């Protein structure tokens, strides 16, 4: 195996590159685009190399890098990777590479700093997925907000100020609660490494408070139902690539955090509360799909649909709590379903936001009533968009179905009613995605006032590569199953051991 510290390279190369881009204003657009392309491509290569060398049969953490960072509080710069992190890093690297390709044809003022912020964001995301020291995790988790805040704040839509401030305060409130519980945990465990938190035996109401703190902290990030109102505003105001990275990867940090923190640490309280949390995520799935149907702004519709699909992730995770005693295989299926749903939703929502960005580029308006009859002028694009809408509504053969199928299976393991309610999402997600498709793609449009014309090459490249990956994950996700299988079983066994 090679010896250079692969994870630190993965984190700090894009950050340094990004900083360089941000600082040098007078760099021409062409050069900055080229530089971003090169850096994101290198990162993609390294991640692929990482995933090949990651042997998924072993249960230990791999590529571990651990140097002491703040000796006083014995906080360590502790990076490592396990099944879930590898898959999520692959998703991040891939999506960022696509954004770099897509951004080539976009026109933004001082584009170099725009692309620079994306690179910084990529480095921080990889950092969040690899950090195994809770303070390091918290720092990366917090610093994710800054580049996105700037991206939406500077290059956003009309009332971006309201959206960015709301988004920033919302997530900040969540992560403050998280910080409190991390500090409390570390004060008991006398160390900040996440794995030491697993073996703590906390009293029940200690666990309850920590659980609620993590639930709110990560619930805001995932957007769970009651705290989701920041997402539609942030998406409407964000530029296309901004809302792509927000929807496809940033929401997954919440899910990842839940799996990493909530499952192993607060199991007893989790089992106690799992009933209510399942109802919460069911509300998220059903009620939000109804709300998504009522939207008249394309981006808001997709934003609400991603809240609904992330409802499946939370359902999968809380089902693990619910089924720990009764049916272990269903719990494992649920957790794997949640992880795969995260990755597949990342790809699908990225694709949808790209296509809406392309439509917006031509017709300069995101409202449903202003865009109609696209298929007459952009046949290839409308075929791809229809494919993505189908994937969004969970058509089997696309990755959208796999995650939902596993989560519904595990929910049937506990109670058929939960399964029935979750399965209605099949109908509801189809209703709003096809409503979008029906209004926008089909229909009569003679005058072509919006000036639709076939999209240019790099947009096609982006969309085609997304189609390939969605189909690959939909038809033969065996490679992905291999990567996350051992980790999920390992997590659930460690939870059971912890409880005995």
């Amino acid at each position, binding site marked *: 195996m090679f010896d250079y510290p692969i994870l630190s390279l993965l984190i700090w190369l894009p950050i340094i590159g990004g900083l360089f881009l941000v600082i040098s204003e007078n760099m021409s657009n062409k050069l900055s685009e080229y530089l971003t392309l090169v850096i994101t491509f290198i990162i993609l290569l390294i991640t692929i190399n990482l995933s090949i060398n990651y042997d998924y049969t072993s249960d230990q953490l791999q590529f571990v890098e651990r140097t002491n960072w703040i000796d006083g509080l014995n906080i360590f710069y502790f990076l490592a990777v396990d099944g879930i992190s590898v898959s999520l890093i692959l998703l991040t690297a891939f999506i960022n590479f696509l954004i770099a390709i897509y951004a080539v044809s976009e026109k933004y003022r001082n584009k170099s700093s725009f692309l620079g912020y994306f690179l910084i964001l990529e480095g921080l995301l990889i950092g969040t997925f690899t950090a195994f020291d809770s303070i390091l995790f918290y720092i990366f988790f917090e610093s994710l907000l800054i580049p996105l805040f700037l991206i939406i704040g500077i290059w956003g839509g009309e009332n971006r100020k309201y959206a960015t401030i*709301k988004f920033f305060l*919302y997530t900040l409130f969540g992560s403050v609660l998280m910080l409190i519980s991390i500090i409390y945990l570390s004060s008991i465990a006398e160390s900040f490494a996440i794995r030491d938190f697993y073996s703590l035996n906390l009293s029940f109401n200690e666990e309850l408070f920590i659980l609620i703190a993590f639930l709110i902290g990560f619930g805001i990030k995932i957007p769970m139902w*009651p705290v989701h*109102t920041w997402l539609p505003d942030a998406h409407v105001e964000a530029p296309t690539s901004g809302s792509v990275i927000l929807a496809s990867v940033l929401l997954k940090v919440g899910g990842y955090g839940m799996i990493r923190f909530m499952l192993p640490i607060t199991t007893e309280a989790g089992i106690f509360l799992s009933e209510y949390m399942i109802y919460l995520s069911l509300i998220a799935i059903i*009620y939000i799909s*109804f*709300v998504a*149907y*009522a*939207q008249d702004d394309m981006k808001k519709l997709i934003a609400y649909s991603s809240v609904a699909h992330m409802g499946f992730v939370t359902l999968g995770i809380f089902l693990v709590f619910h089924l720990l005693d009764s*049916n272990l*295989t*269903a719990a*494992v*299926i649920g957790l*794997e379903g949640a992880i795969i749903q995260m990755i597949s939703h990342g790809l699908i929502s990225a694709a949808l936001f790209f296509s809406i960005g392309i439509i917006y580029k031509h017709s300069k308006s995101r409202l449903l009533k202003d865009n109609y*009859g696209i*298929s*007459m002028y952009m*046949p290839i694009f409308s075929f791809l968009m229809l494919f993505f809408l*189908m994937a969004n*509504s969970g*058509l*089997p*053969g696309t990755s959208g*179905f796999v995650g939902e*199928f596993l989560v*519904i*299976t*595990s929910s*049937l*393991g506990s109670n*058929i*009613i939960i*399964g*029935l309610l979750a*399965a*209605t999402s*099949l*109908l509801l997600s*189809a*209703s709003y995605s*096809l*409503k979008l498709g*029906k209004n926008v*793609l*089909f*229909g*009569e449009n003679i005058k072509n006032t919006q000036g639709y014309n076939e999209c240019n090459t790099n947009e096609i490249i982006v969309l085609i590569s997304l189609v390939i990956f969605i189909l690959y994950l939909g*038809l*033969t*996700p*065996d490679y992905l*199953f*291999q990567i996350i*299988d051992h980790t999920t*079983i390992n997590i659930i066994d460690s939870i059971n051991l912890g409880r005995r």
Partner: protein
Amino acid sequence: MIYLALILLLAPLVGTLLLLYIQNRSKRLSVIISNFSILLSFFVSIYLLFLYFNYNYLPETHDVLIFADTKLYYLAFGLYIDSLSLMMSTVVTSVSFLVHYYSISYMKNESSFNRFFVYTNFFTFSMLLIVLSNNFFQLFIGWELVGLSSYLLIGFWTKKESAIKANYKAFLVNRVGDIGLLLGLCLIFVNYSTTNYAEVFSLSNTINNHDIEIFGTSFNMLSAICLLLFVGAMAKSAQVPLHFWLPDSMEGPTPISALIHAATMVTAGIYMVARLSPMYALADDVSLFILYIGTITAFFLGLVALVQNDIKRIIAYSTISQLGYMTAALGASLYSLAIFHLMTHAFFKALLFLCAGSIIVKCHHEQDIRNIGGLRKFMPITYMAFLYASLSLIGFPLTSGFYSKEGIIDAIGYYDYTIPYLMLLASIFTTTLYTSKIFFKVFFGECTLHDKNEKENDKEMLIPLIILTAPSVFLGLFIFDILMSGELFGSALASNALVIDFYNNYVTNSLHFFLHSFLTVNFLILVLALIFGYYYYYKKSFNISVPKFVSTMLEGEYGFNNLSSKYIPIFQNLFTKYLWKKIDILTIDNGLINNTSAILDKISNKVRKFHTGFIYHYSLTIISALILLLLIVRMQY
């Protein structure tokens, strides 16, 4: 053997990909590719059938592509070759090939010619995926892909507003059924962690004595699973509660109605129940439910067809009622009879639709039968094909429709399910009535064609008609004895004893069944209906005043029509708008978030006034704080 089956399955897929690649560069090329791929799979399936029956292979099943192989569960795509799947694939590929050939001329002046063939090829592939699958998971994938291709094909003319509404409705109703199917599939997968047919069938006894509790009351697990799976079948095969999407799906081009909405897709539900017959045979309360659903659909939907005037809608309703016959047969666990009727129905219904297509093309897209007439002299081939198809539909003795439909009715009568038997008998009357309605209105009476001398239709349209008349008339006779005696589907379907027993002591052989049928009451009703239709539609010698509420109810399809076109859209828009505006924006967004910031503003304004700027106010506060501090310190002492 398995590689042949693979070719059979993948040929249409390869066809689709090639067609996607050439992107209507040339019409001839796309025609060649699409027809050739279906023809190839047709020949392969014929060859496999021949192999299967002459060298009586045992049924084989192979896993082709691993979907997910983890420590706890195993999911894969696989093929299952036995008499049932081969027969079905032959039916599917043959009808699909003829429809492809037919649509060369039907679609020749369409702009997106290639796109049509892409969708039809993809449809055939997904149908074969269902027919050849060996596990529930692949069945569900094929199920949804078929729903997708029907969505694409119904909405083929994207500019037609009504087509878009129809395909949206069709897809959503199919999705309702798919929820049921998915739940059944997941119930099996989570409790028995396998989706393979063979394993599930072997487990079916253990499943039978497990039970699942919903809302506290405990149901038998097997009947719950069968019920859920049947919900999926109900949507796909358009049974009563979920049938209202089929008449609207006539918006699509006519070859599509022939291929999808008559022969293949709608029969997927019947095929599924037949394929899972070992499970359904055990769950007898579910079978009873299926029986009644079938009879209700057959009878009541047949009635609706009487009041329709659009030629394609009448045939669509007749399809639903024939499907009702098949479901009734499934309910009475006469699975081989249901499959038999499925096969014969596929051929003569496809033929009916194709004749309707050529009539529509001839009369320049005129679909209302009231202003078409007297085509007998000008379209001899279509007239002849239509005559045979409708005879077979009515169940005129010696036609294949007679053998399968009368078989089902007599078998149900034989096993004395009295009410269904009576209702099915009555629906013979309605079937004959509406077929005679179309027949006399379209082919007799004064001719409405203005270009009389022009030739009928180009030959690509007419050859399929001729080819199709053969199976739709003689297939019944040809395979009646093999099927009824249980050889054809011996291993594939469960509880063949019922059919064999019925065959031995009631039917004995096809000839006897044919002669005996003239004495039965079915034939009597048939003749009566024919005479009634002749006088009422052709001679118009008398007219019956139908009671007001009956006609309105029938026009409105028992309220389903305006349910789907008015109430559900209204509910969707108003309810969701209400939800979004009221709850999401008002309570959560403004309620919690925005006015917390408003409260903070108010508080901070009040606190601001506290700073007056005068020194003595500040010194006052300092000193009073000092005094307070001293007091507290003093308290401590």
